[in-house]
């Protein structure tokens, strides 16, 4: 597969996107002010397209960052339990019925705290691992994910039927939005992550070789790693609290882009962002095309694609 095919497929699916969905858009009236078609397009389809794009791009970037920092293609915010932490945080906020804390959405704040404390926990726990046992970090992430799932079960157990339904729907991941508020919020943190990675791309390239190499060349690796992890868990926490967990994008996209581009990480930042964006948009378009009646949640779709892909990665890693 080369770059051209990749982009062609993604662009075609992206262009189809506004026209996929249960309500059919009428081309004749789409440019008429306040027509039904125009309102569907501007208030439902367009924000959703932008949301899918920004979310896909951000998840791809966070995946690229984690893989580079831990120097392992299986390490992503999703596989290390960071998304799981955000889901649990958001679940707690929903259960407690919290809406606003200091003017910030409580679900977002708790989502961020869940993601951030998972990152901190991983940093502390990884001190007890020998360098050669880096893969154990992945096991720690999986153990944390199990723990979070069980904790969420406890919340389900304690919740009323409606609360349970809300949290349950949330854990499936969804890109359904009305209006532009979520899009703007996620874009802000996404832009922050993108800017950080771009301006620190040469430091990231040194880190992708090894921690030691980066230190030897004068990078303050500890400080920079904490900055990277802080900003990315902020972006992931806010994102997950608004869309629910959408898994495996961070695993698939950097791998795909690396394979197609065959370039070092410093040249992959924008390609990963754009391919991630278009990929999730394409997935979302597909779910809307194949859905009958009620929509299949996007998180379910990406997990259905990502699960087998994860197995493929593990097997191909073993054989190489």
């Amino acid at each position, binding site marked *: 597969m080369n770059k051209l095919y990749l982009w062609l497929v993604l662009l075609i699916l992206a262009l189809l996107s506004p026209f996929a969905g249960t309500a059919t858009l009428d081309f004749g009236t789409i440019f008429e002010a306040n027509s039904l078609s125009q309102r569907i397009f501007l208030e439902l389809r367009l924000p959703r397209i932008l949301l899918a794009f920004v979310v896909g791009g951000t998840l791809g970037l966070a995946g690229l960052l984690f893989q580079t920092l831990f120097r392992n293609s299986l390490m992503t915010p999703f596989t290390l339990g960071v998304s799981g932490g955000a889901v649990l945080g958001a679940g707690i906020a929903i259960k407690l019925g919290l809406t606003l804390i200091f003017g910030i959405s409580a679900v977002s704040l708790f989502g961020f705290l869940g993601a951030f404390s998972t990152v901190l926990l991983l940093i502390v726990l990884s001190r007890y691992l020998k360098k050669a046992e880096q893969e154990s970090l992945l096991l720690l992430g999986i153990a944390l994910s199990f723990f979070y799932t069980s904790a969420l079960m406890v919340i389900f157990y304690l919740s009323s039927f409606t609360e349970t339904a809300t949290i349950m729907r949330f854990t499936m991941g969804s890109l359904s939005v009305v209006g532009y508020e979520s899009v703007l919020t996620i874009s802000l943190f996404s832009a922050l992550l993108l800017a950080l990675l771009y301006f620190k791309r040469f430091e990231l390239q040194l880190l992708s070789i090894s921690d030691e190499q980066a230190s030897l*060349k004068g990078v303050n690796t500890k400080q920079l790693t904490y900055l990277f992890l802080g900003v990315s868990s902020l972006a992931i926490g806010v994102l997950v609290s608004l869309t629910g967990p959408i898994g495996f994008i961070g695993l698939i996209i950097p791998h795909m882009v690396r394979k197609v581009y065959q370039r070092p*990480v410093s040249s992959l930042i924008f390609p990963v962002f754009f391919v991630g964006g278009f990929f999730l948009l394409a997935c979302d378009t597909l779910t809307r095309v194949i859905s009958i009646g009620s929509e299949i949640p996007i998180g379910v779709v990406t997990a259905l694609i990502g699960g087998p892909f994860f197995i493929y990665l593990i097997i191909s890693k073993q054989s190489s």
Partner: protein
Amino acid sequence: MIVKNLNVSYDDTTVLENINFTIKEHLCILGSNGSGKSTLAKALCGLLPYEGSIQLEVYELSELPPIERAKRVAYIPSKMESFEQFTTVEEFVLLGRYPHKASFKNYSIEDKNIVREVLSELSINELAPLRLHSLSSGQQQLVLIAQALAQKSTLLIFDEPTSNLDPKNTALFVKELQKLRESFTTILITHDIQLAAYLNDPVLFIQDKNAKLYEEDFFKTDRLSQAYGINFKNENGLLGIHYE
């Protein structure tokens, strides 16, 4: 470089205790496996915290900002380890220019010229477009040296440079090393007694957490035998282990 009362710990255990030495031109560090040679090398590069003093020029090593330290000390590992496999040799060597690059800016034309000079100095221009994973061990070692040279540090620390090389590549490496020794201060960590004897630098022998400096006369069979605790022989001026 002047090292005084140096203590280095690793994972809460003291690896080196009360190490003292001064490097005038070159130094060779010898010692058994696990004696702490690499730990010492890492401390000298500023990768590990230490107690005591490592004086570099007029500065204390731990007080130098990382970038300034990198302008003065370069470390060449025995093996190239990289998660990233799609980096080309040229890009990899360019990373050696990182300490000299203005922050937030791209590498300059001058940086790229220095990379080209360094590659031709080592006669490996033809490797420039190749990816790291396609290199042989010998080529990797030369590329690592090229990166350290691009760094333009005054002190080069080689950590077991010949341990992965075949005789031909070892000979090539030693030829390059000889040239470098004219303009750089070098520290060589090795198990290769024959190479160490050939270079005939002052030897720092590390044993039981301590180090002893031999300004000369280390490469005598009786002294070697005593240091390593096995028998060495000298046949026609060629030092070697006496296998039993």
